[in-house]
Protein backbone atom coordinates (compact mmCIF):
# COMPACT_ATOMS: atom_id res chain seq x y z
CA UNK A 1 0.00 0.00 0.00
CA UNK A 2 2.78 2.35 -0.82
CA UNK A 3 1.66 5.50 -2.52
CA UNK A 4 4.24 4.91 -5.26
CA UNK A 5 3.20 1.91 -7.28
CA UNK A 6 5.79 -0.40 -8.82
CA UNK A 7 4.01 -0.20 -12.14
CA UNK A 8 3.15 3.46 -12.44
CA UNK A 9 1.39 3.19 -15.76
CA UNK A 10 -0.79 0.27 -14.94
CA UNK A 11 -3.85 0.64 -12.87
CA UNK A 12 -6.11 -2.28 -12.26
CA UNK A 13 -9.64 -0.95 -12.10
CA UNK A 14 -10.28 -2.61 -8.77
CA UNK A 15 -7.17 -1.14 -7.23
CA UNK A 16 -7.25 2.40 -5.97
CA UNK A 17 -5.01 4.88 -7.67
CA UNK A 18 -2.12 6.44 -5.88
CA UNK A 19 -3.30 8.56 -3.02
CA UNK A 20 -3.71 12.21 -3.80
CA UNK A 21 -1.34 14.23 -1.70
CA UNK A 22 -3.58 16.06 0.72
CA UNK A 23 -1.00 16.05 3.41
CA UNK A 24 2.44 17.51 2.86
CA UNK A 25 4.12 17.48 6.30
CA UNK A 26 6.34 14.77 7.74
CA UNK A 27 4.64 11.56 8.87
CA UNK A 28 4.34 11.21 12.59
CA UNK A 29 2.15 8.79 14.53
CA UNK A 30 1.12 11.40 17.11
CA UNK A 31 2.32 14.93 16.56
CA UNK A 32 1.49 16.22 20.04
CA UNK A 33 4.56 15.51 22.26
CA UNK A 34 2.40 15.79 25.38
CA UNK A 35 1.04 12.34 24.54
CA UNK A 36 4.01 10.60 26.18
CA UNK A 37 3.14 11.92 29.61
CA UNK A 38 -0.53 10.98 29.47
CA UNK A 39 -1.46 8.55 32.25
CA UNK A 40 -3.04 5.97 29.96
CA UNK A 41 0.00 5.72 27.68
CA UNK A 42 1.95 2.73 28.96
CA UNK A 43 4.78 2.33 26.48
CA UNK A 44 6.00 2.82 22.95
CA UNK A 45 6.35 0.58 19.95
CA UNK A 46 8.85 1.37 17.17
CA UNK A 47 7.58 1.59 13.58
CA UNK A 48 9.11 2.77 10.31
CA UNK A 49 7.66 6.25 10.85
CA UNK A 50 8.49 6.63 14.52
CA UNK A 51 7.37 5.46 17.92
CA UNK A 52 3.68 4.80 18.44
CA UNK A 53 2.29 5.17 21.97
CA UNK A 54 0.89 2.00 23.49
CA UNK A 55 -2.29 2.58 25.46
CA UNK A 56 -3.61 0.68 28.43
CA UNK A 57 -6.84 -1.28 28.00
CA UNK A 58 -7.95 -0.94 31.58
CA UNK A 59 -9.76 2.16 32.65
CA UNK A 60 -8.49 3.66 35.88
CA UNK A 61 -10.46 5.58 38.46
CA UNK A 62 -9.14 8.71 36.83
CA UNK A 63 -10.70 7.77 33.48
CA UNK A 64 -13.95 6.98 35.23
CA UNK A 65 -13.90 10.23 37.18
CA UNK A 66 -13.37 12.07 33.92
CA UNK A 67 -16.32 10.24 32.35
CA UNK A 68 -18.44 11.07 35.37
CA UNK A 69 -17.52 14.73 35.10
CA UNK A 70 -18.50 14.74 31.46
CA UNK A 71 -21.88 13.29 32.33
CA UNK A 72 -22.46 16.12 34.77
CA UNK A 73 -21.21 18.72 32.29
CA UNK A 74 -18.14 19.73 34.33
CA UNK A 75 -15.34 20.92 32.09
CA UNK A 76 -16.38 18.63 29.27
CA UNK A 77 -14.69 20.67 26.60
CA UNK A 78 -11.23 19.61 27.73
CA UNK A 79 -11.95 15.92 27.38
CA UNK A 80 -9.88 15.25 24.31
CA UNK A 81 -7.34 12.74 23.08
CA UNK A 82 -4.47 14.00 20.89
CA UNK A 83 -5.31 12.80 17.37
CA UNK A 84 -3.00 10.28 15.79
CA UNK A 85 -2.09 6.61 15.82
CA UNK A 86 -2.02 4.49 18.97
CA UNK A 87 -1.21 0.87 19.64
CA UNK A 88 -2.96 -1.70 21.78
CA UNK A 89 -0.87 -4.71 22.84
CA UNK A 90 1.96 -5.28 20.40
CA UNK A 91 0.47 -4.88 16.94
CA UNK A 92 2.36 -5.68 13.75
CA UNK A 93 1.83 -5.00 10.07
CA UNK A 94 -1.10 -7.40 9.91
CA UNK A 95 -3.01 -6.11 12.91
CA UNK A 96 -6.41 -4.51 12.39
CA UNK A 97 -6.81 -0.71 12.41
CA UNK A 98 -9.76 0.81 14.23
CA UNK A 99 -10.73 4.43 13.74
CA UNK A 100 -12.45 6.50 16.36
CA UNK A 101 -13.16 10.09 17.43
CA UNK A 102 -10.89 12.04 19.74
CA UNK A 103 -13.68 12.39 22.29
CA UNK A 104 -12.11 10.71 25.30
CA UNK A 105 -15.25 8.71 26.16
CA UNK A 106 -15.40 7.20 22.68
CA UNK A 107 -11.70 6.41 22.83
CA UNK A 108 -11.93 4.92 26.34
CA UNK A 109 -14.89 2.76 25.39
CA UNK A 110 -12.95 1.40 22.44
CA UNK A 111 -9.61 0.71 24.15
CA UNK A 112 -11.29 -0.95 27.13
CA UNK A 113 -12.87 -3.44 24.70
CA UNK A 114 -9.51 -4.36 23.19
CA UNK A 115 -7.94 -6.04 26.22
CA UNK A 116 -5.65 -8.90 25.26
CA UNK A 117 -5.59 -7.96 21.58
CA UNK A 118 -3.11 -6.41 19.21
CA UNK A 119 -4.51 -3.56 17.21
CA UNK A 120 -3.89 -0.06 15.89
CA UNK A 121 -6.23 2.71 16.91
CA UNK A 122 -6.45 5.71 14.61
CA UNK A 123 -7.83 8.71 16.47
CA UNK A 124 -9.32 11.32 14.16
CA UNK A 125 -9.42 14.96 15.11
CA UNK A 126 -13.13 15.53 15.76
CA UNK A 127 -12.56 18.47 18.13
CA UNK A 128 -13.41 16.34 21.13
CA UNK A 129 -16.87 15.41 19.92
CA UNK A 130 -18.26 11.86 19.81
CA UNK A 131 -18.48 9.91 16.58
CA UNK A 132 -22.07 10.53 15.72
CA UNK A 133 -22.25 14.23 16.46
CA UNK A 134 -18.88 14.67 14.80
CA UNK A 135 -20.07 12.85 11.68
CA UNK A 136 -23.17 15.02 11.54
CA UNK A 137 -21.09 18.14 12.09
CA UNK A 138 -18.60 17.15 9.44
CA UNK A 139 -15.48 16.70 11.57
CA UNK A 140 -15.56 12.89 11.43
CA UNK A 141 -15.28 13.09 7.69
CA UNK A 142 -13.70 11.60 4.62
CA UNK A 143 -11.29 14.55 4.53
CA UNK A 144 -10.13 14.07 8.10
CA UNK A 145 -9.81 10.33 7.65
CA UNK A 146 -7.66 10.73 4.54
CA UNK A 147 -5.56 13.44 6.16
CA UNK A 148 -5.03 11.40 9.33
CA UNK A 149 -4.04 8.22 7.50
CA UNK A 150 -1.45 10.22 5.60
CA UNK A 151 -0.21 12.29 8.52
CA UNK A 152 0.39 9.19 10.63
CA UNK A 153 2.12 7.33 7.80
CA UNK A 154 -0.26 4.45 8.38
CA UNK A 155 0.39 2.91 4.98
CA UNK A 156 4.07 2.43 5.92
CA UNK A 157 3.17 0.69 9.17
CA UNK A 158 0.70 -1.92 7.99
CA UNK A 159 0.73 -4.21 4.99
CA UNK A 160 -3.03 -4.46 4.56
CA UNK A 161 -5.51 -1.79 3.54
CA UNK A 162 -8.52 -2.34 5.76
CA UNK A 163 -9.58 0.33 8.19
CA UNK A 164 -12.47 -0.37 10.52
CA UNK A 165 -14.58 2.69 11.32
CA UNK A 166 -17.57 2.85 13.64
CA UNK A 167 -20.75 2.48 11.64
CA UNK A 168 -22.17 5.80 12.78
CA UNK A 169 -19.18 7.46 11.15
CA UNK A 170 -20.81 6.58 7.82
CA UNK A 171 -22.84 9.75 8.18
CA UNK A 172 -19.65 11.71 7.51
CA UNK A 173 -17.34 9.25 5.76
CA UNK A 174 -17.86 8.00 2.25
CA UNK A 175 -16.09 4.66 1.99
CA UNK A 176 -15.78 4.93 -1.77
CA UNK A 177 -14.20 8.36 -1.71
CA UNK A 178 -11.92 7.45 1.19
CA UNK A 179 -10.63 4.50 -0.80
CA UNK A 180 -9.75 6.44 -3.90
CA UNK A 181 -8.08 9.17 -1.90
CA UNK A 182 -6.27 7.30 0.86
CA UNK A 183 -5.99 3.82 -0.55
CA UNK A 184 -7.64 2.37 2.55
CA UNK A 185 -10.79 0.32 2.36
CA UNK A 186 -13.13 1.57 5.05
CA UNK A 187 -15.15 -1.16 6.68
CA UNK A 188 -17.99 0.06 8.82
CA UNK A 189 -17.91 -1.97 12.00
CA UNK A 190 -20.43 -2.20 14.81
CA UNK A 191 -22.30 0.80 16.18
CA UNK A 192 -21.24 0.09 19.75
CA UNK A 193 -17.72 -0.40 21.01
CA UNK A 194 -18.89 -3.36 23.12
CA UNK A 195 -19.56 -5.33 19.93
CA UNK A 196 -16.06 -4.71 18.56
CA UNK A 197 -14.39 -7.84 20.06
CA UNK A 198 -17.00 -10.12 18.57
CA UNK A 199 -16.79 -8.30 15.27
CA UNK A 200 -13.02 -8.78 15.20
CA UNK A 201 -13.37 -12.47 16.04
CA UNK A 202 -16.15 -13.29 13.57
CA UNK A 203 -15.27 -10.82 10.86
CA UNK A 204 -18.89 -9.86 10.22
CA UNK A 205 -21.65 -7.85 11.78
CA UNK A 206 -24.64 -9.58 13.23
CA UNK A 207 -27.93 -7.77 12.55
CA UNK A 208 -28.12 -6.33 16.05
CA UNK A 209 -24.71 -4.71 15.71
CA UNK A 210 -26.16 -2.49 12.96
CA UNK A 211 -28.85 -0.74 14.91
CA UNK A 212 -28.69 2.09 17.35
CA UNK A 213 -30.40 1.50 20.63
CA UNK A 214 -31.93 3.92 23.03
CA UNK A 215 -32.56 1.70 26.01
CA UNK A 216 -33.48 2.90 29.48
CA UNK A 217 -29.81 2.82 30.41
CA UNK A 218 -28.86 5.12 27.53
CA UNK A 219 -31.62 7.51 28.41
CA UNK A 220 -30.75 7.61 32.09
CA UNK A 221 -27.16 8.44 31.14
CA UNK A 222 -28.48 11.54 29.43
CA UNK A 223 -30.35 12.77 32.48
CA UNK A 224 -27.51 14.41 34.44
CA UNK A 225 -26.19 16.53 31.60
CA UNK A 226 -29.68 17.54 30.55
CA UNK A 227 -30.58 18.33 34.14
CA UNK A 228 -27.55 20.58 34.52
CA UNK A 229 -28.27 22.38 31.25
CA UNK A 230 -31.92 22.90 32.01
CA UNK A 231 -31.32 23.82 35.64
CA UNK A 232 -29.18 26.72 34.47
CA UNK A 233 -31.93 28.08 32.25
CA UNK A 234 -34.74 27.29 34.64
CA UNK A 235 -33.07 28.94 37.61
CA UNK A 236 -33.02 32.26 35.77
CA UNK A 237 -36.72 31.96 34.96
CA UNK A 238 -37.47 30.80 38.48
CA UNK A 239 -35.64 33.71 40.06
CA UNK A 240 -37.50 36.18 37.86
CA UNK A 241 -40.80 34.54 38.68
CA UNK A 242 -40.01 34.48 42.40
CA UNK A 243 -39.34 38.22 42.40
CA UNK A 244 -42.48 38.93 40.39
CA UNK A 245 -44.60 36.74 42.64
CA UNK A 246 -43.27 38.52 45.73
CA UNK A 247 -45.27 41.54 44.66
CA UNK A 248 -48.78 41.50 46.02
CA UNK A 249 -51.40 44.17 45.69
CA UNK A 250 -49.64 45.85 48.60
CA UNK A 251 -46.28 45.89 46.84
CA UNK A 252 -43.21 43.78 47.46
CA UNK A 253 -42.63 42.40 50.93
CA UNK A 254 -40.65 39.70 52.71
CA UNK A 255 -43.92 37.97 53.63
CA UNK A 256 -44.92 38.06 49.98
CA UNK A 257 -41.61 36.46 49.05
CA UNK A 258 -41.94 33.68 51.60
CA UNK A 259 -45.61 32.94 51.04
CA UNK A 260 -45.76 33.09 47.24
CA UNK A 261 -42.51 34.24 45.62
CA UNK A 262 -40.42 31.33 46.79
CA UNK A 263 -43.10 28.66 46.16
CA UNK A 264 -43.74 30.03 42.66
CA UNK A 265 -40.06 30.00 41.80
CA UNK A 266 -39.65 26.49 43.12
CA UNK A 267 -42.71 25.33 41.18
CA UNK A 268 -41.12 26.61 38.00
CA UNK A 269 -37.91 24.77 38.73
CA UNK A 270 -39.87 21.66 39.62
CA UNK A 271 -41.89 21.87 36.39
CA UNK A 272 -38.75 21.93 34.24
CA UNK A 273 -36.61 19.44 36.14
CA UNK A 274 -39.37 16.87 36.58
CA UNK A 275 -40.06 17.12 32.85
CA UNK A 276 -36.38 16.38 32.13
CA UNK A 277 -36.16 13.51 34.60
CA UNK A 278 -39.45 11.75 33.82
CA UNK A 279 -39.37 12.72 30.17
CA UNK A 280 -36.03 11.00 29.55
CA UNK A 281 -36.83 7.86 31.48
CA UNK A 282 -40.48 7.39 30.44
CA UNK A 283 -40.03 8.54 26.82
CA UNK A 284 -41.16 5.40 24.97
CA UNK A 285 -44.16 4.87 27.21
CA UNK A 286 -45.60 8.36 26.99
CA UNK A 287 -48.48 8.44 24.49
CA UNK A 288 -48.10 9.98 21.06
CA UNK A 289 -45.26 10.03 18.54
CA UNK A 290 -44.51 13.72 18.56
CA UNK A 291 -42.27 14.60 21.49
CA UNK A 292 -44.31 17.71 22.25
CA UNK A 293 -47.36 15.49 22.59
CA UNK A 294 -45.53 13.11 24.93
CA UNK A 295 -44.46 16.14 26.95
CA UNK A 296 -47.99 17.52 27.18
CA UNK A 297 -49.16 14.22 28.65
CA UNK A 298 -46.34 14.21 31.13
CA UNK A 299 -47.12 17.82 32.07
CA UNK A 300 -50.77 16.92 32.59
CA UNK A 301 -49.70 14.25 35.07
CA UNK A 302 -47.49 16.78 36.85
CA UNK A 303 -50.44 19.20 36.96
CA UNK A 304 -52.63 16.53 38.55
CA UNK A 305 -49.96 15.89 41.15
CA UNK A 306 -49.74 19.63 41.77
CA UNK A 307 -53.51 20.02 42.27
CA UNK A 308 -53.49 17.06 44.64
CA UNK A 309 -50.63 18.63 46.60
CA UNK A 310 -52.47 21.96 46.82
CA UNK A 311 -55.63 20.20 47.98
CA UNK A 312 -53.51 18.45 50.58
CA UNK A 313 -52.33 21.86 51.63
CA UNK A 314 -48.65 21.17 51.31
CA UNK A 315 -47.44 23.72 48.74
CA UNK A 316 -48.51 27.10 50.01
CA UNK A 317 -51.64 29.11 49.26
CA UNK A 318 -52.73 29.84 45.72
CA UNK A 319 -55.85 31.44 44.30
CA UNK A 320 -57.99 29.29 41.96
CA UNK A 321 -56.95 31.34 38.94
CA UNK A 322 -53.29 30.91 39.81
CA UNK A 323 -53.83 27.17 40.08
CA UNK A 324 -55.55 27.16 36.71
CA UNK A 325 -52.58 29.06 35.27
CA UNK A 326 -50.13 26.49 36.61
CA UNK A 327 -52.28 23.65 35.29
CA UNK A 328 -51.83 25.07 31.80
CA UNK A 329 -48.17 25.97 32.34
CA UNK A 330 -47.07 22.46 33.38
CA UNK A 331 -48.09 20.71 30.13
CA UNK A 332 -46.69 23.57 28.05
CA UNK A 333 -43.33 23.54 29.83
CA UNK A 334 -43.03 19.76 29.69
CA UNK A 335 -44.07 19.81 26.04
CA UNK A 336 -41.30 22.27 25.20
CA UNK A 337 -38.68 20.43 27.24
CA UNK A 338 -39.47 17.12 25.56
CA UNK A 339 -39.54 18.70 22.14
CA UNK A 340 -35.99 19.80 22.85
CA UNK A 341 -35.12 16.16 23.49
CA UNK A 342 -35.39 15.51 19.76
CA UNK A 343 -31.79 16.73 19.63
CA UNK A 344 -30.41 13.96 21.81
CA UNK A 345 -32.47 10.97 20.70
CA UNK A 346 -31.10 8.79 17.95
CA UNK A 347 -34.29 8.36 15.95
CA UNK A 348 -35.75 11.75 15.10
CA UNK A 349 -35.72 12.93 11.50
CA UNK A 350 -35.41 16.54 10.39
CA UNK A 351 -38.63 16.33 8.43
CA UNK A 352 -40.38 15.03 11.52
CA UNK A 353 -38.96 17.72 13.76
CA UNK A 354 -39.96 20.38 11.28
CA UNK A 355 -43.48 18.92 11.13
CA UNK A 356 -43.68 18.89 14.88
CA UNK A 357 -42.19 22.30 15.65
CA UNK A 358 -44.44 23.98 13.09
CA UNK A 359 -47.52 22.63 14.84
CA UNK A 360 -46.49 22.56 18.47
CA UNK A 361 -44.61 25.81 18.90
CA UNK A 362 -47.59 28.16 18.20
CA UNK A 363 -49.69 26.12 20.63
CA UNK A 364 -46.95 26.30 23.25
CA UNK A 365 -46.61 30.05 22.88
CA UNK A 366 -50.39 30.51 23.09
CA UNK A 367 -50.51 28.18 26.08
CA UNK A 368 -47.85 30.00 28.02
CA UNK A 369 -49.53 33.34 27.27
CA UNK A 370 -52.86 32.08 28.60
CA UNK A 371 -51.14 30.64 31.67
CA UNK A 372 -49.37 33.94 32.33
CA UNK A 373 -52.61 35.94 32.01
CA UNK A 374 -54.48 33.61 34.35
CA UNK A 375 -51.62 33.76 36.83
CA UNK A 376 -51.45 37.57 36.75
CA UNK A 377 -55.24 37.86 37.11
CA UNK A 378 -55.11 35.41 39.99
CA UNK A 379 -52.37 37.33 41.75
CA UNK A 380 -53.22 40.93 41.19
CA UNK A 381 -56.91 41.19 40.30
CA UNK A 382 -59.01 38.42 41.76
Amino acid at each position, binding site marked *: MEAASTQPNKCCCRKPQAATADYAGPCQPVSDPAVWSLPWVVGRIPTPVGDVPIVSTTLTWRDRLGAWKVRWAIGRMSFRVPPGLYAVGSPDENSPILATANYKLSFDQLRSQLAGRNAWVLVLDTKGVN*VWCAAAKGTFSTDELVRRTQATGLAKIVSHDVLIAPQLGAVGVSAGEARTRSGFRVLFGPVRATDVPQFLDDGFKSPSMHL*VRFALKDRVTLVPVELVQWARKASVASAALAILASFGREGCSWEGFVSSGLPSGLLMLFAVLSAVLFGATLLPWLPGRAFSCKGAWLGACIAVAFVAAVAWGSVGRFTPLEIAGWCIAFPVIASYVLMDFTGVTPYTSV*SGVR*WEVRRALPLQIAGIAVAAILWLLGRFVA
Partner: protein
Amino acid sequence: MNGFQYISGVVSLTVDEAKCVGCRMCVNVCPQGVFVIENRKAKIHRRDDCMECGACAKNCLTSAITVQCGIGCARALIRSVVFGTEPTCDCSGDSAA
Protein backbone atom coordinates in the same frame (compact mmCIF):
# COMPACT_ATOMS: atom_id res chain seq x y z
CA MET B 1 -36.25 1.03 15.91
CA ASN B 2 -37.58 -1.45 18.45
CA GLY B 3 -40.60 0.37 19.74
CA PHE B 4 -39.38 3.88 19.03
CA GLN B 5 -41.13 5.49 16.15
CA TYR B 6 -41.20 9.11 15.28
CA ILE B 7 -43.74 10.95 13.18
CA SER B 8 -44.88 8.86 10.23
CA GLY B 9 -45.22 9.77 6.59
CA VAL B 10 -42.85 12.72 6.52
CA VAL B 11 -39.48 11.19 5.64
CA SER B 12 -37.79 12.41 2.46
CA LEU B 13 -35.96 9.19 1.53
CA THR B 14 -36.06 7.86 -2.05
CA VAL B 15 -34.27 5.08 -3.89
CA ASP B 16 -33.86 5.13 -7.65
CA GLU B 17 -34.20 1.46 -8.54
CA ALA B 18 -32.74 1.96 -11.97
CA LYS B 19 -29.46 3.18 -10.53
CA CYS B 20 -29.26 0.67 -7.67
CA VAL B 21 -26.81 -2.17 -8.20
CA GLY B 22 -27.67 -4.07 -5.03
CA CYS B 23 -24.29 -3.61 -3.36
CA ARG B 24 -25.81 -3.68 0.15
CA MET B 25 -23.82 -0.69 1.33
CA CYS B 26 -26.98 1.11 2.43
CA VAL B 27 -28.09 -1.92 4.43
CA ASN B 28 -24.68 -1.97 6.06
CA VAL B 29 -24.54 1.65 7.14
CA CYS B 30 -28.14 2.37 8.10
CA PRO B 31 -28.46 2.51 11.89
CA GLN B 32 -32.22 2.05 11.74
CA GLY B 33 -32.56 -1.04 9.54
CA VAL B 34 -34.56 0.86 6.95
CA PHE B 35 -33.46 -1.12 3.86
CA VAL B 36 -33.77 -4.68 2.69
CA ILE B 37 -32.43 -6.11 -0.56
CA GLU B 38 -35.00 -7.80 -2.78
CA ASN B 39 -34.13 -9.14 -6.22
CA ARG B 40 -30.74 -7.38 -6.03
CA LYS B 41 -32.37 -4.00 -5.46
CA ALA B 42 -32.55 -1.94 -2.30
CA LYS B 43 -36.10 -1.62 -0.98
CA ILE B 44 -37.25 0.82 1.67
CA HIS B 45 -38.65 -1.56 4.18
CA ARG B 46 -39.24 0.60 7.24
CA ARG B 47 -39.59 4.11 5.92
CA ASP B 48 -40.91 5.65 9.13
CA ASP B 49 -37.85 4.49 11.04
CA CYS B 50 -35.53 6.61 8.90
CA MET B 51 -33.92 9.40 10.86
CA GLU B 52 -32.54 11.18 7.80
CA CYS B 53 -28.93 10.86 8.91
CA GLY B 54 -27.74 10.61 5.32
CA ALA B 55 -25.29 7.74 5.83
CA CYS B 56 -26.89 5.68 3.08
CA ALA B 57 -26.84 8.45 0.48
CA LYS B 58 -23.25 9.34 1.38
CA ASN B 59 -22.09 5.78 0.86
CA CYS B 60 -24.14 4.71 -2.13
CA LEU B 61 -21.61 4.42 -4.95
CA THR B 62 -24.19 4.91 -7.69
CA SER B 63 -25.99 7.84 -6.03
CA ALA B 64 -29.24 5.93 -6.14
CA ILE B 65 -30.38 7.29 -2.80
CA THR B 66 -31.55 10.78 -2.05
CA VAL B 67 -32.49 12.01 1.37
CA GLN B 68 -32.79 15.49 2.72
CA CYS B 69 -30.47 14.96 5.62
CA GLY B 70 -29.95 17.16 8.60
CA ILE B 71 -30.13 17.31 12.34
CA GLY B 72 -33.39 16.22 13.88
CA CYS B 73 -33.16 18.71 16.69
CA ALA B 74 -35.89 21.15 17.61
CA ARG B 75 -33.50 23.54 19.33
CA ALA B 76 -31.33 23.84 16.22
CA LEU B 77 -34.40 24.37 14.06
CA ILE B 78 -35.95 27.04 16.30
CA ARG B 79 -32.64 28.85 16.57
CA SER B 80 -32.16 28.83 12.84
CA VAL B 81 -35.62 30.35 12.37
CA VAL B 82 -35.14 32.96 15.08
CA PHE B 83 -31.66 34.02 13.99
CA GLY B 84 -32.13 33.35 10.31
CA THR B 85 -29.08 31.07 10.12
CA GLU B 86 -28.47 27.51 9.03
CA PRO B 87 -29.43 24.90 11.64
CA THR B 88 -26.24 23.94 13.44
CA CYS B 89 -25.65 21.10 15.77
CA ASP B 90 -23.94 22.29 18.90
CA CYS B 91 -25.08 19.15 20.59
CA SER B 92 -22.60 17.80 23.02
CA GLY B 93 -24.80 14.84 23.80
CA ASP B 94 -23.30 11.52 24.16
CA SER B 95 -24.80 8.70 22.28
CA ALA B 96 -23.20 5.30 21.87
CA ALA B 97 -19.91 4.75 20.06
